[in-house]
């Protein structure tokens, strides 16, 4: 990997800033779509930003008996997500951080964030914290095989698991994107991303019903600025993963490894449109879905594992040397 140009650094910084700034809008947009489809007025796209601002001004309250794990977990979740945003080819291909972590590393960072929040849930020592953590970690454990197999399937054509290599390889050979392996991997990854970001049908982000909540139970003791970080981080996670899926399977518009100013701008617009469309589709589909019973989720994830396995074997057998 050659030295990246100044514009590549700029593009990476823009990726981080764009994710930071756009994540609340993505969440707000999805809520708004859902509200309109359900016949409600909705709070508007900017509502999550207003919530963040309000929560950041509230008093910092530390629950008795919690340790530094509880205090640091939101920052770690947000930090890992920002790092993923910096590594991923969202706007341009040549992120200077691309060689530091491939897709396996990105998955590892994602799980590091999950683990930080589960530990925080346990740290509170409440019934809800433990319940949410237990459920979250069970889902995470079963999601991991599917993610890694999907990574495997994606890395076969480009002979590399580094994100820039995968994306540029599929941008050069668009025909590969409609191959059975790629399509199966897409479906598998989509299921996995819905599970990891706590969307329907795995988890309902807008519920606080004790029998069903997973993510919300884990973070129940957070208030004020720390809650703001948790919510911001979960929005960023969704945004980054949607952006990543978009560019892995629809790599058009992304700026090259050595970008021009125009290329970076086109890349920014392209990723914004792609994420907006994906988020819109996700929100629309969610309206028509009911949450799965918790013990039916393993079946869904086993199904996605099977799809990922088929994706890999399909790539092996249909591989063009």
């Amino acid at each position, binding site marked *: 990997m050659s030295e990246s140009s100044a514009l590549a650094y700029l593009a990476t910084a823009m990726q981080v800033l764009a994710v930071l700034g756009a994540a609340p809008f993505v969440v707000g947009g999805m809520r708004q779509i859902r509200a309109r489809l359900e016949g409600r007025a909705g709070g508007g796209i900017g509502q999550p930003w207003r919530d963040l601002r309000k929560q950041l001004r509230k008093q910092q309250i530390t*629950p008795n008996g919690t340790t530094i794990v509880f205090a640091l977990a939101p920052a770690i979740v947000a930090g890992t997500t920002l790092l993923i945003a910096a590594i991923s080819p969202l706007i341009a291909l040549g992120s200077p951080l691309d060689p530091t972590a491939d897709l396996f590393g990105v998955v590892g960072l994602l799980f590091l964030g999950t683990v930080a929040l589960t530990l925080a849930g346990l740290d509170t020592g409440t019934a809800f914290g433990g319940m949410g953590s237990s459920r979250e970690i069970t889902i995470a454990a079963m999601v991991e095989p599917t993610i890694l197999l999907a990574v495997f399937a994606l890395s076969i054509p480009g002979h590399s698991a580094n994100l820039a290599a995968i994306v540029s390889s599929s941008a050069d050979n668009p025909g590969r994107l409609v191959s059975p392996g790629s399509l199966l991997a897409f479906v598998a990854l989509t299921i996995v991303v819905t599970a990891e970001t706590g969307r329907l049908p795995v988890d309902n982000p807008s519920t606080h019903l004790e029998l069903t909540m997973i993510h919300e139970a884990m973070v129940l003791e957070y208030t004020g600025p720390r809650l703001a970080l948790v919510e911001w981080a979960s929005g960023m996670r969704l945004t980054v993963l949607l952006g990543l899926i978009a560019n892995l399977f629809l790599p058009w518009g992304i700026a090259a490894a050595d970008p021009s100013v125009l290329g970076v701008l086109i890349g920014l617009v392209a990723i914004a449109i792609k994420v907006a469309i994906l988020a819109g589709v996700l929100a629309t589909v969610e309206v028509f879905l009911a949450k799965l019973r918790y013990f039916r989720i393993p079946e869904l994830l086993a199904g996605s594992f099977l799809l990922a396995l088929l994706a890999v074997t399909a790539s092996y057998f249909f591989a063009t040397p």
Partner: protein
Amino acid sequence: MNTAQTAPYDSPSVPAPDQGLRSPRRAQAQAFVSGGLTAAIGAVGLVLGLSAIFAQPRQLVISWLLPLVGVRFEFGPLGGFFVAATGAVSIAVGIYAIGYAQREHWARFPLFILPLFVAAMLLVPAAGSVTSFLLAWELMAAASLALVLSEHHRAAVRSAGAFYAVMTQLGFAAILLALVVLSAAGGGDSFATIAAHAGGISSGTRTAVFLLTVMGFGSKAGLLPLHAWLPRAHPEAPSPVSALMSAAMVNMGIYGIIRIDLQILGPGPHWWGLTLMIFGAVSAVFGVLQASVATDLKRLLAYSTTENMGLVTLALGTASMLSSYGAPQVAAMAMTAALLLILSHASFKTLAFLAAGSVLAATGLRDLDKLGGLARRMPATTTMFGIAALGASGLPLGAGFVGEWLLLQSLIHSPHANNTLLALAMPLSVGAVALTTGLGIAAMVKAFGVGFLARPRSAAAEAAREAPASMLTGMGLAAVACTVFAVAPILVGPALKHVLTALPTVGGQAAGPALGAYLRLPGIAGSMSPGLIALSLLVAVLLVLALARWGARHRPAAVSAPVWACGADSINAKMQYTATSFAEPLQRVFDNILQPETDVEVTHFAESQYLVEKVTFRTQMADPVEQRLYTPVVRAVTTWSQWVRRAHPGSVHLYLAYGAIGLLIVLVVVR
């Protein structure tokens, strides 16, 4: 809801009753000598091992020490690697043992055996001939058995000791048979001679030796189905001994497989690699599944050893198989992964067992359902266990990440020249590794989150106090090693390169992965940098913390407040999740494999059957493999012994009759 849970295993109790005979000062001196000697032997091992890795292979023959054959030592890179790893583990354990032996009032006998055990372990990979190897192996087995039995006044220890003794001796018998056959076919006692004549050994003999060694060495490494001694012996042994056994002794099984099957007899046929891969994958998944539902902290760690040795064996099998399919570069990647996994496992498992030992010494508890709240009472130990747990979960910033990353890379970059076997074996292996990692995360989150965070679940956990300085120093050394493997594997790169060169049969001569600041793979556009990930994550977290300062000047002063008690007056320890409840979803999902025995008993009030007075929930986690495979064997042996026993009821007349009949038979046969 009134929930009562019973732990399936009795928790360790008071120190041995034979104490009080020694003055405290004398006991202190003895602990110091024993621990210091252990650490010193370990240091010698580390130095000798490192010099063996980098220097030319040398031999040392002491012909007078053993009649007829003498004792032969060989200092090569492969043996040196294992000697150095064992030595490093022993240094940390030795220093730790100084404090632990005093705090737990060790008797004189285990204090005496501990350095001996370390010395025996160092001799195993240094042995250069079949006789010396077997001698050192048996010495190691006997010393470890004596140490496992150090708290023999408890019935659980005696049972574990019996289990361990039988299994380790059966394993020894298999190894003995294999090595005797090998040395007969290879025309000599020394490994060098056998290796020189290895080409002439018939394929039938090779197969027999391979199967016997995989069985014998596999039982030492804790591979399925011969793993059953691990979850019994490791929890019952004193913690420094558990650390030595789990971080160093199980490696000897792996060493045996590498030395005999890959180095001397390799390159083996395709099915050797496949066999190792299957054993490895099954062990890894089964081990981690048991670990994720275990409630005994040390049993959890013991199952995690089976898991990690399974991953190592999977890597060895991958290396062997890819090398037999003519992909030496990828094979070298898999082999590097195996070596790195051995090192990282040694470091984090030492640390984990030592931290568990601190907890045990402070609270007398191993049961996670009764622990909790240690983060405030034992902050240093908690940090140490956190580092170990992060390493064991295979996440970035953890010691195990780099090894697992390399293993996954070697699995996904295997050549796919329309080879059906590879096309099926590799994705399934990736799935197995991924499931292992996922469940490993769950197991470690449970061990750390339930055991160390939250509120104490018993009075003993509430009264815990921090471990003494020597114990913390020992743990600190292991934590440093964990950090090195987590962020700077570059430091062990040159050593691994030398070891690989000594293993030509698994692609050792090919360009393996380059462990620089960036980990680069040969011929593949893939890279990763654990150090830079750590650094940039630190920057990102600091950035987030700075962002969270936004609006801070509008905030009232920070306070701390009680947590929400779900509407009750105040929160108490019984409201929180226990280890059992934390793992319950996993237990339900993997019900078919784990086969737990759960029992819910509802007692109603006498007045009405609609009102519940009490609900009792019991769950017992037995090892299904053990129950299905071992119980019938043990029962058959017992029946057979009962039958044989009838022949000697104690009557001297009867015995004389046996003698006479025997003599007659001999006479008839001889005539």
